[in-house]
């Protein structure tokens, strides 16, 4: 349920070249989330009908929503980058929702997972810029024009820090929001143990239901914000450079 109450279980010890890549409960949840996204997408488009069923309708709504949002951003390169953004949204959403199931390790409340996703976005939008305008031209565009020579080192440092701030903000935002939800849940439920009174126990119980519903909303919002910012950064890399 919570990041602190759900320990990370090591199921199989594995190490390659001194790097620990053990199969943990978090890894199992990540694989499960990826499998769920794959199966949902597969069954939604497998034997797709003109009059869509429930699953096909849900996937079509998500697709059309992101399609309309990123139409101007991606332009002609929509077919290349829209699947990446959609996959990000679906994967993060499933991860967030899985984290609310009691006993399942909440992986988006783990900074390593959100950092890995942010690094993937960081690499993706630089790749988008390089593919769009070429290696030299893309990185040359980071150096501002008509700037005195003495100010150039400072502006280059600012540009590098600004580029680093993007994945940093993506990783911290998702991690902090999901961790906060789990910690609030833990705090509210702890009140039952602290007060040890049957008359007071009902209030944390009702509070838990309210927070649970709010957490479902947060799961959707955070998945959307992450995917939206990924799309924005890719779009900017394509258009500005």
């Amino acid at each position, binding site marked *: 349920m919570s990041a602190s109450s759900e320990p990370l279980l090591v199921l199989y010890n594995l190490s390659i070249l001194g790097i620990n890549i053990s199969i943990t409960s978090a890894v199992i949840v990540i694989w499960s989330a990826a499998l769920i996204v794959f199966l949902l997408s597969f069954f939604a488009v497998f034997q797709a009908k003109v009059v869509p069923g429930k699953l096909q309708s849900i996937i079509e709504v998500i697709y059309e929503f992101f399609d*309309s*949002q*990123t*139409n*101007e*951003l991606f332009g002609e390169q929509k077919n290349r980058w829209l699947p990446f953004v959609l996959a990000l949204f679906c994967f993060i959403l499933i991860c967030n929702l899985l984290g609310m199931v009691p006993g399942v390790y909440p992986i988006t409340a783990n900074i390593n997972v959100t950092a890995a996703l942010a690094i993937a976005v960081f690499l993706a939008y630089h790749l988008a810029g390089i593919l769009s305008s070429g290696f030299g031209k893309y990185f040359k565009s980071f150096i501002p024009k008509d700037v005195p020579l003495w100010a150039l080192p400072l*502006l280059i*440092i*600012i540009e590098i*820090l*600004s580029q*680093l*701030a*993007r994945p*940093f*903000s993506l990783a*911290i*935002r998702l991690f902090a929001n999901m961790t906060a939800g789990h910690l609030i849940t833990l705090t509210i439920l702890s009140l039952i143990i602290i007060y040890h009174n049957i008359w007071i126990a009902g209030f944390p119980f009702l509070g838990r239901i309210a927070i649970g519903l709010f957490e479902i909303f947060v799961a959707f919002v955070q998945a959307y*914000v992450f995917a939206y*910012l990924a799309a*924005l*950064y890719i*779009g*900017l890399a394509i*258009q500005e450079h």
Partner: protein
Amino acid sequence: MFLMDSWGKDIGDSLTLGFEIVLPTLLGALLGYLLDRYFGTWPIIMIMGLFLGAALGFFMVVYKFVLGSDNKEKR
């Protein structure tokens, strides 16, 4: 419909704004801490790095959001 030139980029910038102050501050402190460990002067350079990083963070925000928008209007 998402409008690229108007609020889309502004929202993206706003969501990253806070981190653009925090990141240089943390990096400044980290760099100072590493230099302190090397020279054995803890915590003098770390404190200096912290303040310099924070100053750079504020300058970054002013440069990007105040001077940047001013230049845009002039154009």
